[in-house]
């Protein structure tokens, strides 16, 4: 039994006063005073509009903001009359609490899960505090499948530009789909719905002193839900517009955090994916539509230059990570002119699989291994951009689909290499 999470005395008293709830919405924050007001308004309106008969609590789990984020949450209210909502029957409770433990989104979620457990919440959702495009409908789409359809986990499905979320498109979605056999389009979306039962399951895992507490909580929640046998679905939420991520975090660090989390989960759940083949669609709720999204400017030359430099300078390190024939294929790209340079889908799938095995085998310090993949990732992203120039986002989606099929097709390669490593 893992230790219970310590709550601040005021939070504890507030939880005891509320006693029970049907719905709990968690908002982790850290210096988001300029955006969190909109998020709280959307959440409040969503609860009033779609769940007016249910007891609801909004929890803001704050990491010690210095810009008055908790004050903004406390004084934010929504004019329900202006939204033609007149039959709110249950009051909306707000809990504003600091979280304890390692600083990070994971620790903020842990506090939210703990409050959900103590309040015996039936359905929960977490939404980012930097969202600019959240609407009241998001709350319905994240909560309704749990309350009415019996799902345990609701992953988001966003409308995104074809070059928005390239790590998701080229690694996280294809890899998660090929490994666990479920086509969850946004496994690291950041906004999720889940049942109270699943929140308890999350709390019971011994991961809260690990990197999960700092970063990687999104992919951990998705993977843990799948591996625990939870019923999983997706909800269409429309466009996701949010503040840029930490500008100080560079691409290599981002890649290290995301890939490190997914590779560590592969180790922990190898029994859940090793013998699976193919994939199945996951139910999608909502009303998907296509619309113009913010344009994204891409500098392909810079990405190709980075790939070429990696090929010239990091070759000895890549040789330790990649299998011989895979490395030869990568090296064969050396003299190819920029306009013809492509990292094909199957080669990319093998590169990611080799990296996962090398991570498991600790062929070099893990941080080095993950960061050394950055030029390869940029080469692959450049390939995707060159292949999809002039295509609409939905046409580009078919390229992502074909990449996913390659990941699935190459799964026996991963299985063979993984088992080979385990037995030697």
């Amino acid at each position, binding site marked *: 039994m893992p230790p219970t999470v310590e709550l601040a005395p005021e939070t504890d008293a507030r939880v005891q006063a509320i006693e029970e709830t049907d719905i709990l919405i968690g908002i982790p924050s850290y210096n988001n005073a300029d955006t969190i007001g909109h998020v709280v308004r959307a959440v409040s309106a969503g609860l009033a509009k779609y769940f007016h008969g249910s007891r609801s609590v909004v929890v803001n789990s704050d990491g010690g903001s210095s810009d008055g984020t908790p004050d903004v949450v406390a004084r934010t209210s929504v004019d329900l009359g202006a939204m033609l909502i007149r039959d709110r029957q249950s009051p909306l409770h707000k809990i504003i609490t600091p979280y304890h433990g390692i600083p990070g989104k994971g620790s903020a979620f842990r506090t939210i899960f703990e409050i959900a457990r103590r309040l015996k919440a039936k359905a929960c959702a977490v939404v980012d505090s930097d969202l600019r495009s959240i609407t009241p409908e998001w709350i319905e789409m994240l909560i309704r499948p749990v309350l009415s359809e019996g799902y345990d986990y609701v992953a988001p499905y966003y409308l995104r530009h074809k070059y928005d979320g*390239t*790590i998701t498109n080229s690694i996280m979605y294809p890899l998660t789909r090929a490994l666990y056999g479920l086509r969850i389009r946004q496994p690291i979306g950041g906004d999720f719905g889940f049942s109270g039962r699943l929140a308890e399951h999350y709390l019971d895992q011994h991961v809260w002193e690990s990197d999960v507490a700092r970063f990687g909580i999104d992919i951990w929640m998705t993977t843990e839900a799948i591996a625990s046998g939870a019923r999983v679905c997706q909800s269409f939420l429309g466009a996701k517009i949010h503040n840029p*991520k930490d500008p100080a975090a560079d691409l290599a660090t981002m890649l290290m955090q995301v890939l490190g989390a997914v590779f560590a989960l592969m180790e922990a759940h190898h029994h859940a994916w090793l013998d699976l083949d193919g994939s199945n669609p996951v139910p999608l709720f909502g009303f998907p539509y296509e619309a113009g999204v913010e344009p994204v400017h891409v*500098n392909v030359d810079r990405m190709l230059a980075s790939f070429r*430099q990696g090929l010239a300078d990091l070759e000895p390190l890549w040789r330790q990570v990649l299998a011989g024939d895979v490395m030869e294929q990568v090296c064969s790209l050396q003299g190819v002119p920029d306009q013809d340079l492509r990292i094909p889908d199957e080669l990319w799938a093998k590169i990611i699989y080799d990296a996962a095995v090398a991570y498991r085998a600790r062929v070099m310090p893990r941080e*080095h291994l993950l960061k050394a993949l*950055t030029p390869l990732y940029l080469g692959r992203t450049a390939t995707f951009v060159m292949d999809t120039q002039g295509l609409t986002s939905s046409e580009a989606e078919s390229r992502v689909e074909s990449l996913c099929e390659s990941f699935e097709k190459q799964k026996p390669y991963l299985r063979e290499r993984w088992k080979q490593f385990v037995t030697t």
Partner: protein
Amino acid sequence: MEEFIDQTVLGPLTELGRQVLTILPNVLAMVLLVSAGFLMAWGLGHGVERLMRVIKLDQLCNRLGVNAALVRGGVKSDPSRLAGRAVFWAVAVFATVAGLSALNLQPVNQFARSFLGYIPHLFTASLILVAGYLLSNFVWQAVLITAVNAGLPPARMIAALSRWGVQLAAVAMALEQLGIAKTIVVVGFGITLGGIVLAAAIAFGLGAKDLAKDFMERRLSGGPDSRGPDDLRHM
């Protein structure tokens, strides 16, 4: 005649025989100690080699780049074998010194004392060299990856300089530990490092002044990267 033979031949022989009898136990003790020591060295060396293979030292060293470095240095034995040989020779040298001490000869005893007193320094120096080597490889890898990801063209040179810097520092510390030309080592290290930094600064100032100017301008003005816009959102 008999008296003459007694005095000139048998006397010295008797004396020699007495001296031999006096030293014989010591010689026997030496032979015994050295033999037992070598036997123990063989056993321990063999045992350590097997133990290292069981705990997969070779694989660990392979990951740390030690095997590659050994091959580059012309050493064909694997790390487990080397560890076994190191233990063998350490015990063998101890046994030999202990055996020589058993002879109870003044110069030998003096040498043995000096040698035993020097061993901790030798051990520390070896540790410094090994740790310095491993650290230099780690630093080389980290600097190379960071420089490549930052798009710095001389990434390999920067990484190589970092590696040599760490190895140079390790050698200087090891030599100081061994008491070899302490002052020269410290001064030499200072001059070399200072020279490298100065040379790098001059080279950068003269050879890459446009790059430096461009970099500073972008930093100070907060202007866009001249290589073109890129607001790709990876996450």
